[in-house]
């Protein structure tokens, strides 16, 4: 079954994505299962998708946003960056704080690239934006991080 192999292949990355950004919307495991239930409802789209991974990320994102809105209708979307519980040096901690201060859209795009390993094209598919916008968000994010790090080191 193709869906099962996709689950084994991309399940860990999707679970990490859901746990990171939308853990408060519900149990990340439930959201992951709901993602695959949504996928089976539209098998044609899955088959036609240029990148099944990007398509599954897009579905997971929609599922999580819906769950989040259902739970808290007036709340804004989650800030996304849950600090991992591993020991971090001062530089790493500083970088995490810098990333946490990035605008939501820039941070989300950067996470999809660096953490989830999606290509520019796949990120464009997941977020439903032109590839030029992906490029521009990444440029702004890295420029800002570099400026902040330089400033931190100078001070």
């Amino acid at each position, binding site marked *: 079954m193709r*869906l099962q192999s996709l689950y*084994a292949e991309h399940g860990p990355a999707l679970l*990490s994505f859901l746990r990171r950004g939308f853990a408060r919307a519900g149990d990340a495991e439930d959201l992951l*299962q709901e993602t695959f239930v949504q996928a089976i409802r539209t098998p044609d789209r899955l088959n036609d998708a240029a990148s099944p991974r990007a398509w599954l990320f897009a579905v997971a994102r929609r599922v999580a946003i819906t769950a989040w809105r259902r739970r808290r209708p007036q709340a804004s979307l989650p800030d996304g960056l849950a600090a991992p519980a591993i020991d971090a040096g001062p530089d790493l901690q500083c970088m995490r704080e810098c990333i946490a201060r990035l605008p939501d859209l820039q941070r989300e795009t950067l996470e999809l*690239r660096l*953490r989830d390993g999606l290509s520019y094209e796949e990120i464009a598919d997941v977020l439903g934006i032109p590839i030029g916008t992906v490029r521009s968000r*990444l*440029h702004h994010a890295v420029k800002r*991080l570099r400026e902040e790090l330089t400033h931190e080191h100078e001070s």
Partner: protein
Amino acid sequence: MNMNPEPLEELLIDRELGGSSPAVDALLDAYLAEHEHARRLKDSVANTVAAARRAMAPPSEKRLPPFPAERLLRERRRQTPRTRAWAGLALAASVVLAFLAGAWFERPAAISPLAQFTARSDNAAGDAEPGFWSARRWYDRAATPPRGAAQRVEWTSPLKSPKIGGST
């Protein structure tokens, strides 16, 4: 020739993030080989991206929940009757549309006096059998009295026996 620092930085960011083409990379390498300030910028961008990558290192998801096979199977079963209902609805809609199309093509057209004159002269030939989907077929059928109504009882005097039959 020196590049502006802003587009240079963007090219370097794309390169570090794996979003640039080999052709651009080759041109960038050639430029970096000749410009010290560009190499410094490249190192700075590379360090920033590497630090961001480390800071975002995904925690390993070892405990992936089991594949929800039963739930997916239920979902697929639930979808099947819905598909059948849609097929039935589509069939009914096709029949209605075919009937409406028949009525549309059989409607009296708005024609010019010359065409009416020509049509009148060919009237005998124009009485073709209406098609099965034609609305005229149903009008004709409604206008034709039932077979029983074509006969009547004639009883002119109580001294005579009644006559059954004769057209109206």
